[in-house]
């Protein structure tokens, strides 16, 4: 594990919340360990108690019984307000105070902790830089003057302002459009790479859970844990019908978003030729020798340019314009989902490029299906053994 983890472990033991006048508890005997520096997603249908569970961690809701420790410290023994100042909190639609400027909103928690003015002011600028808002432009704006995505960024900056080890996020990206949501999710992952907080994230969107979570807890009624595992494991092997229903159709497709091209065995045996160094007749001879019908033409820096069929070569005078241009390419960083998209649009083979755009191989549909098959078998074997 990275050595710069700033998060701490959270433990919930037999936590129960019973509201007066109701027969069944809202949260029943909930036990979970949330590892330090990880993003754990609580996901489940509305009304399952996931938000109640999260709100008991910072005691916005007091548990009826059970034990909660944050970094080994008993959360139920602390003063509630003092506890909440040490736990970041971000909610849907950001919950920014409309009569405070962006800077004032971010400065609330440091202010409550009695930091001195200069320190707060520096921290505000630092946080705004961190979430990608230029302090010179946005410092003195009011929340109403920002877009939904910008408000959400300020919400995250406010939650992180006092550098809490733990961050609770209650459907923070629920109210923004899908494109902005995607960007915010990417940014959260980028931030987390740097900050390594312990993040508890509530959502009802399973795709969001798969994208963001180091671990996902699928919760049923009364916040009962149906499955608590990595996204890969849940997708490959849902523990029961309820989880399978929640994962929904397309589990295999979702799995493709978790895998990178660099992690799979793509081919590197395509016949390639560097355009300026070769002629159509040379290439034709090579292709007949090796029994290939297609070849890939590269430029001087080995970047893929064109696909050539052996038929095209008889009439061509130069390799620079023969065949058809290469369309969608994927890099080794791309997800298998991107690769599949490229394979489909290219009609069979997609070209894989390295970090500088140079040719490294090709990937086809059998690579993708074999990989999924292999994952299934691994997780089946794993769950059978345990």
């Amino acid at each position, binding site marked *: 594990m990275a050595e710069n983890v700033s998060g701490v472990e959270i433990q919930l033991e037999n936590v129960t919340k019973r509201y007066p006048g109701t027969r069944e508890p809202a949260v029943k005997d909930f036990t979970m360990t949330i590892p330090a520096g990880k993003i754990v997603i609580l996901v489940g249908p509305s009304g399952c108690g996931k938000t109640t569970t999260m709100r008991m961690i*910072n005691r*916005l809701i007091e548990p009826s019984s059970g034990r909660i420790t944050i970094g080994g410290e008993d959360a139920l023994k602390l003063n509630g*307000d*003092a*506890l*909440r*100042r*040490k736990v*970041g*909190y971000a*909610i*849907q*639609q950001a*919950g*920014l*105070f*409309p*009569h*405070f*400027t962006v800077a004032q909103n971010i400065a*609330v*928690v440091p202010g*409550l902790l009695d930091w001195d003015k200069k320190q707060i002011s520096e921290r505000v600028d630092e946080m705004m830089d961190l979430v990608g808002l230029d302090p010179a432009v946005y410092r003195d704006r*009011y*929340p*109403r*003057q920002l877009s939904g995505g910008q408000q959400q960024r300020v919400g995250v900056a*406010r*939650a992180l302002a006092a550098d809490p080890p733990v961050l*609770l996020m209650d459907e923070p990206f629920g109210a923004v459009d899908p494109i902005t949501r995607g960007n915010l999710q990417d940014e959260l992952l980028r931030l987390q790479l740097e900050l390594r907080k312990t993040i508890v994230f509530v959502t009802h969107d399973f795709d969001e859970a798969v994208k963001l979570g180091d671990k996902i807890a699928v919760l049923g009624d009364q916040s009962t844990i149906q499955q608590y595992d990595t996204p890969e494991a849940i997708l490959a092997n849902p523990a029961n019908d309820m989880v399978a229903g929640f994962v929904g159709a397309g589990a295999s497709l979702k799995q493709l978003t978790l895998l990178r091209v660099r992690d799979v065995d793509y081919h590197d045996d395509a016949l390639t030729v560097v355009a300026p160094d070769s002629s159509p007749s040379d290439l034709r001879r090579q292709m007949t020798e090796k029994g290939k019908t297609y070849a890939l033409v590269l430029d001087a820096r080995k970047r893929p340019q064109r696909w050539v069929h052996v038929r095209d070569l008889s009439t061509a005078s130069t390799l620079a314009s023969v065949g058809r241009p290469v369309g969608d390419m994927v890099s080794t960083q791309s997800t298998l989902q991107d690769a599949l998209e490229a394979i489909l649009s290219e009609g069979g083979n997609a070209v894989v490029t390295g970090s500088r755009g140079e040719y490294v191989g090709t990937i086809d549909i059998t690579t993708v299906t074999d990989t999924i098959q292999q994952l299934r078998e691994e997780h089946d074997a794993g769950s059978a053994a345990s």
Partner: protein
Amino acid sequence: MSSTTEIQGFSTESGSRRADRVRLFAQPVAVVVIVGLVLVWAFTRSNDSIEAESIQAGVLLDKTWEHVLITLVVAAIVVGIGVPLGMVLTRSWARPVAPLFIAIANIGQAAPALGVLVLFFLWTEWDGLWAAALPIAFYSLLPVLRNTIVGIQSVDPALVDAGKGIGMSSSGVLFRIEVPLAVPLILAGLRTSLVLAVGTATLAFFVNGGGLGELVDTGYKLNRVSVLVVGAVLAVGLALLVDWVGALLEEYLGPKGLT
């Protein structure tokens, strides 16, 4: 204003911001012109000795000042009682008794102002400024009390949750979030209360409280129309000016960033 709250606030908005702006400028101008014209007329006509006794600068200024003083005292009492009471009644532990206080304030406003004034006089046997100001304050308490409650209740619960969630104490949430965001409605209530108070203060002379009502009374009883007109026009002008001051407060004291 939120339609989910069971208690509705008093609103002073016309619905058009432009109309409000024009009014902000035109209202005091109209008052000054009309009051000026009436005063010029009253001072230049040939007044008999009874009229002359009332229509002189010293007397008019005294009566106007008494009237303003009653209004100021009432405003202080109404803000001093209505706002804190409203804040207390919105706390979760006090919610059950809120309707009781609203009902009492409703009685104060529903009863005729003169009745409240006279009953208070008969009960306490006081007279003068306080004998007038206290019942008038009771009479005009409701808008401030009710708007404080409605204003605080209509603050988005997500903001209260966010405030608590990031570690504000309950009083921090009340004074930094709930009350500031309720200020526009509280000021609208204060403006309504002030208009009620300045109107009702014309009855203060019944309990020896002075004010412009005294001129109206004198003019009426002694059958001097000029005195009656001067008293009435000054009272109307003062009411419109007070309303204008209320509008100014609403315009400039509200929290920033809301529009």
